[in-house]
């Protein structure tokens, strides 16, 4: 590690996060959050999902703006490719969750980041979603993420950043562990 007197700034307010952790440990009911999205079919395999509000800390919250995500399927699936596929949105969610974690952990550990990039690949046999082979699952067989990180840290410290970000990642947990899902109509 280089010796530096410049304070580390990755743009993450870890004091606030640590304060929140303390506060929520004392008031566990405030730690219960609900995240929401609403989706509208827009013809074909195309849909738009809006994300506006969520609840937590005992109250409703609104994002600073409404975020809209479009999803579709590519032309080789006889669709019009008006948005990324839903499975690519999952890859995006995983990569961005891990990246946020890397920044937060680096800030907490006093490591200055200069650049963090990653590529993510999910391998899938589409015979599953096509219903052509009952032994093939619908989802990914495996996901590979590769980070490239330039930071004031040793290779082992960078490895530890990435490992810790997985340990604290919501999306990593969501994709690696089962979740009960109920889907209802009306």
């Amino acid at each position: 590690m280089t010796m530096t007197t410049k304070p580390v700034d990755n743009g993450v307010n870890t004091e606030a996060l640590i304060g929140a952790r303390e506060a929520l440990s004392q008031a566990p009911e405030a730690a219960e959050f609900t995240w929401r999205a609403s989706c509208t079919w827009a013809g074909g395999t195309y849909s738009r999902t809006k994300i506006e509000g969520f609840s937590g800390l005992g109250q409703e919250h609104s994002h600073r703006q409404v975020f809209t995500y479009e999803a579709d399927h590519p032309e080789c699936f006889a669709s019009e490719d008006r948005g990324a596929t839903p499975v690519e949105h999952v890859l995006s969610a995983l990569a961005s969750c891990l990246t946020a974690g890397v920044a937060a952990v680096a800030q907490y550990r006093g490591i200055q980041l200069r650049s963090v990039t990653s590529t993510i690949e999910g391998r899938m046999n589409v015979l599953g979603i096509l219903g052509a082979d009952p032994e093939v699952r619908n989802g990914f067989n495996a996901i590979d993420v590769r980070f490239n990180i330039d930071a004031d840290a040793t290779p082992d410290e960078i490895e530890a950043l990435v490992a810790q970000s997985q340990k604290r990642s919501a999306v990593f947990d969501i994709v690696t562990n089962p979740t009960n899902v109920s889907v209802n109509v009306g």
Partner: protein
Amino acid sequence: MDTTTVVIGAGQSGLAMSHRLTERSIDHVVLERGEVANSWRHERWDSLRLLTPNRESRLPGWRYDGDDPDGFMAVPEVVTFIDSYAAAINAPVLTGTAVTRVETSSRGYQVTTTGGVWNCEALVLAGGAANLASIPSLATTVPVSIDMVTPMTYRSPECLHEGGVLVVGASATGVQLADEIQRSGRTVTIAVGEHVRLPRTYRGRDIFWWMDAAGVLDERHDDVDDLVRARHIPSPQLIGTPEHRSIDLNSLARLGVEIVGRLCSIRDGVAQFSGGLANGCRLADLKMSRLLDRADTWAQETGIDVEDAPLRFQPTSVPSDPTLEIHLHRQAIGTIVWATGYRPDYSWLDLPVLDRKGRIRHDGGVISDAPGVYVLGGNLLRTRRSSYIAGTEQDTYELANHLHEYLDRHACVKAKAC
């Protein structure tokens, strides 16, 4: 019946505290539900040996004096060690006396037992951190045909039902049981979540020698970054054997044990395991390397003569495509071993000292919500050494001092009130 201090539990902690109280001429009794060292006698498996070498087997005024300071005591030796201590310090133990209720009283605290009621001013909870096996709630979803055992009921591989064995948890207990069950000729799968990997020996010396020398075991509870987490870290993957061999996921895999991720759910007889196995192993490898870095730095800075050069161990070799699901019947799993930790039993404790998770709120063993009440035992009670027998020396010294001061203050307040 009246006494100044009641100590609950006649294991190593309760007896060590009894010795400290006797040294200070504090009148007390030690209440024991069974016999001295009861958990060691009745609730441990046959092959178990201590994780710490004999030189670390110390109680206040008492130490191992055999001819194998580097060896590891088997359970009968531990029982003898503690038994002899109880006799040597002439501890006022009432055996066969189970505590059924503890509440406040005008004197301080009232302790109801199967052998009568005690009133006291101070109270020491030394019943141990491992009274009950901690089993995850998903145990209720295990098919009824599968036998379930805990480290408290398991004795040896011969006692298991026929069929394969799923060991859940990769603490010292989990890896030791997976190791001996696989060696007995069974097919073992081990479900691995967060774990701590340590070599038995490093540069020719026991890992406890290093952790002692480099000050790791002396790290205090109030200096640890995240105490709640630190107290819940599984015990390190170590085994005490005459050969001083290491045990870890690589050694288990070489025996043929299948390594899978953390057990997440059992649905329709299918056990599902986390896909996060590789990261759990990476975290443990990195953490082990940091500890070895610290040992090497210490050795270099102190200039101590260590025969062997620093080295780093092979990373944990994680299967490239680990199993995510096991159909318990089709794969003929006959037994699930829950090596998922222990917890204390406080069902009889009627004092406002438990947090929402049923754990005692305390600061290094001092329970501020019940003045004059202390707790002993458990991970990182006061220092990292608290997890091991030798931790009782310093922990009971410091808490006995605190208790003594409390009694003096208490007597003073009462005198003024009169």
